[in-house]
């Protein structure tokens, strides 16, 4: 018995013989050492079998000696496959082109990721990499190996302690450790500190300069608080005055709040639709369902499609429909009053610096008119009132 798949490489052919003494012909074939299989009688004096392609020349003399006619049927195996492939080599070309494209694409760089770097360092790294040719779309086999890239990067960028370069598939990963460089002290020009507004001083904290006021002093706007001129008369020196002067200041604010208000709020439900549009003609691509929202807002994002480096006139558009709902809010007089107070405080806090604190609040006036609450508030605040004022020399 023979392995049938071994016949695949040598190629096999189906033979039909017709005439008298077909069995004798088969015997003769066997005696000549030919391999014959799948013998089948298909008619009164018609026999068909398979044989190896290389045995065909030996078959001919045997047939000539017998009284049979020979015809060939199905051909199978590698030699015939090869012939067929050459006959339609377009396919072959396509396969090779495809493989070539896949090969090229899988040897490109498809991403450069920098991790652990400050934005400016990242920018520098990316710039250096671009100079080295490491960018999206570059061929990997034209680039330096990762060790060399690593060395070049650490050589060229002085703020780097270490860079880990790793090529994972088609993406470069850069793990960055930056040097910690000491901060350069700020160069402050010589200056005074003056009052930002009218206040009563509550606390003084002067780092540098000559304080001219003390606690409980009342100061006006623009009044000199800390002088940048130190030293005895005749031996004066200019310094940048530095410090915090806390003073008690006063704010007045008015908040008007309607008792009833109508809002549009999103319910969280949304429908997405995708379109491809050419000029003003939009073809829906995804999301064909009908909108079931009574009120909604639309949001659309457009992105032009690109081919190579050209922008195509086709635009991909994503439209999101968000359902909205009307909500009615109504306060009682007391609630509205409390709410207004809260709003006023929040507004003030947003205006103030972080180190400021609200010490006291008073309601000056509260009234209801035309379905609205009007509240006038008065606040006592402790805040830093110091404001730098450059010293113009030569005065």
């Amino acid at each position, binding site marked *: 018995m023979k392995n049938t798949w071994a016949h695949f490489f040598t190629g096999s052919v189906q033979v039909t013989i017709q005439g008298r003494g*077909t069995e004798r012909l088969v015997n003769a074939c066997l005696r000549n050492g030919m391999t014959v299989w*799948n013998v*089948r*009688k298909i008619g009164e004096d018609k026999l068909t*079998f398979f044989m190896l392609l290389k045995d065909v020349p030996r078959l001919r003399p045997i047939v000539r000696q017998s009284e049979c006619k020979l015809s060939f049927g199905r051909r199978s195996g590698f030699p015939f496959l090869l012939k067929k492939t050459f006959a339609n080599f377009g396919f072959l070309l396509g396969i090779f082109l495809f493989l070539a494209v896949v090969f090229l694409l899988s040897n490109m760089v498809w991403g450069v990721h920098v991790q652990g770097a400050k934005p400016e360092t990242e920018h520098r790294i990316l710039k250096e990499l671009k100079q080295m040719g490491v960018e999206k779309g570059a061929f990997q086999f034209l680039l330096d190996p990762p060790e060399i890239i690593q060395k070049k990067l650490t050589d060229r960028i002085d703020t780097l302690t270490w860079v880990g370069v790793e090529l994972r598939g088609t993406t470069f990963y850069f793990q960055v450790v930056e040097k910690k460089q000491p901060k350069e002290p700020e160069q402050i020009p010589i200056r005074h500190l003056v009052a930002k507004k009218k206040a009563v001083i509550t606390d003084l904290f002067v780092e540098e300069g000559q304080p001219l006021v003390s606690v409980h002093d009342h100061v006006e706007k623009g009044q000199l608080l800390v002088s940048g001129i130190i030293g005895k008369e005749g031996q004066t020196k200019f310094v940048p005055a530095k410090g915090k002067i806390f003073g008690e200041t006063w704010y007045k604010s008015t908040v008007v709040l309607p008792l009833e208000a109508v809002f549009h709020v999103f319910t969280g439900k949304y429908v997405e639709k995708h379109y491809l549009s050419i000029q003003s003609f939009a073809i829906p691509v995804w999301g064909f369902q009908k909108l079931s929202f009574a009120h909604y807002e639309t949001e659309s994002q457009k992105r032009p499609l690109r081919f190579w480096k050209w922008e195509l006139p086709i635009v991909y558009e994503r439209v999101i429909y968000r359902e909205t709902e009307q909500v009615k809010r109504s306060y009682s007089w007391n609630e509205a009053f409390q709410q207004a107070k809260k709003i006023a405080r929040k507004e003030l806090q947003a205006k103030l610096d972080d180190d400021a604190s609200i010490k006291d609040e008073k309601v000056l006036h509260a009234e209801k008119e035309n379905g609205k609450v009007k509240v006038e508030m008065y606040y006592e605040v402790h805040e830093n009132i110091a404001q730098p004022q450059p010293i113009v020399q030569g005065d």
Partner: protein
Amino acid sequence: MKKWRQQVKKWLANQLELPADVVMDLPRITMIGHIHIYIENHRGLLTFSDKELRLLLKQGQLLVRGEEFVIKTILPEEILLEGKIQQVVYLDQ
């Protein structure tokens, strides 16, 4: 003379417990159910159709009857037949 030689061979096969097909040049027939028949030691194909196979043996002939016969493999001394085998008959001549 030929008969005598045959007798000796038969005696040898019996006494030395040698396989009879080797000593006496007899066909060895293996059947797998009624779908395969494997015959070794034949001397050639006499007739073949999809209902009948006649093989020449050293002594006499072997006739296999059935349906849908296909010779899967045929070598000078071996044959593998596939189909629905109904009868295997020895014909003496």
